């Protein structure tokens, strides 16, 4: 299915990536050609086939619900673009 510039804009918004208006058309063309190539999957009969999300048949293991790490804010904040005392500083989200 071909996707148009408006769809690219919508998807880019969902993905939180800014795309300049001038780039929307070329990106729509690129993504459409990739999706057109992907369409060949429709040739495969998948009636009754169980989707395969993982190659492992086992169920995920569980661990004891205990604290194994933490209590070191300085380490956690060491890579923060902005930090103040023991907090990440983020843009204002509540008016």
């Amino acid at each position: 299915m071909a996707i148009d510039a408006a769809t690219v804009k919508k998807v880019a918004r969902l993905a939180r990536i800014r795309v300049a208006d001038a780039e929307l058309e070329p990106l729509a063309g690129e993504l459409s050609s990739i999706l057109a190539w992907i369409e060949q999957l429709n040739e495969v009969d998948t009636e009754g086939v169980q989707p395969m999300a993982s190659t492992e048949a086992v169920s995920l293991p569980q661990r004891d619900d205990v604290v194994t790490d933490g209590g070191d804010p300085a380490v956690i904040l060491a890579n923060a673009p902005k930090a103040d005392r023991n907090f990440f500083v983020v843009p204002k989200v509540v008016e």
Partner: protein
Amino acid sequence: MTDLTGLTLKDALDGLKARRFSAVELAQAHQAAIEAARSLNAYVLETPEEALAMAQKSDARLKSGDAGPLEGASLGIKDLFCTEGVRSTAGSKILGNFIPPYESTVTANLWRDGAVMLGKLNMDEFAMGSSNETSAFGPVVNPWRSHGSNRPLTPGGSSGGSAAAVAADLALAATATDTGGSIRQPASLTGTVGIKPTYGRCSRWGIVAFASSLDQAGPLAKTVEDAAILLRSMSGHDAKDSTSLPGAVPDFAGFVGKSVKGLRIGVPKEYRADGMPPEIEKLWAQGVEWLKDAGCEIVEVSLPHTKYALPAYYIIAPAEASSNLARYDGMRYGLRVDGPTLTDTYEATRAAGFGAEVRRRVLIGAYVLSAGYYDAYYLKALKVRRRIADDFDQAFEKVDALLTPTAPSAAFGLGENASDPVAMYLNDVFTVTVNLAGLPGLSLPAGLDAQGLPLGLQLIGRALDEGTLFQLGSALEKAADFRAKPAPWWRP
């Protein structure tokens, strides 16, 4: 002492144990080689101080008799592995100056066994690429050149830095990762040996995530035996990765040199790509002959859904990537580009931080997962994935392993496939099936083409049966007797 860099991992370990040279001498020889090869752009970060400190400790342990299985071995680490206190970027601007406060399990296993880190290796951004051209640090240049040409070639991707470093003797061996072919395709393009083990064999903890149901770590090395030695140290159960497989790790090197007589080898007729050079066809047929001569029984098998593996992959991998890469929001680490609102900040950060290929894949992922398209694309791809895995299950009822080409071409020129994403994706046509099914795949160099460029063959095995691949790989290695090395044109 520069000839120390020409040693295999096995010979270097033997030499260290016999005290013929020290771990410090070995690391210094590699550092000198790395400095002289900066034009290859294989390393994005050299860590000579860490290397020296680790090598000194190795020498002390070698002296006191506490040496680990990799004691003193100089290795390169793909920049997808988080290394404590050492910048780890995944080849992306968005992680520009990220200094992990923790060590990935795979690298921790290597240091536990005594290995020495030379530095961090270049790669396609977030491991998304087949030519190393999507790296924020610029492409790696393949040490190999065509006869009589100065044209720079790609080492493949995404583990292009790892492959080039091993091919140019800038490390005894290197870590790498493989989501759709990122160990095996570069191995094929650089005349090195690489194995993607069974999904779950190596812990993914501390490896920057691309597509979590497909990502696996593995080694790039100079010989099959070296790959076996390194994979053993990298592997093992890890409670910090819920998909890590329990159970003991076999002594993979013990399979090297074992007779392959009576093993049944499948040759899948679907592994003939349109426009594949006749030389690759010929080499594949030669590989079949070598295994026949070694006593294997050859069986033609069919993997009918092979051609659908790449399109299924280009739904599944971007879908998982769009989820995994949502964490790069500019708040807790990495790049932040401020905007007037929170959403503006996210959008500006991710626009500035992600390169074109990563953006393309995140957008495809967000699209195929979005309301109204999930069933048509994502669910359909997961069903096709099951079909592909079933093909392998049926083939492995009849055979012990499969032999195929690794890649549909030899190394190509930098820039050559850059304008057409789908053409670039086709590089993984023979490797990606294995990731979807979670199986082990090994690539080894089997010959040179008419241009003097290396070509690889791939062995595919049953889940958890890497041993048979090392056994067969060493038989092929012996028959192919591949000894060619690139001429060191990069040395000043």
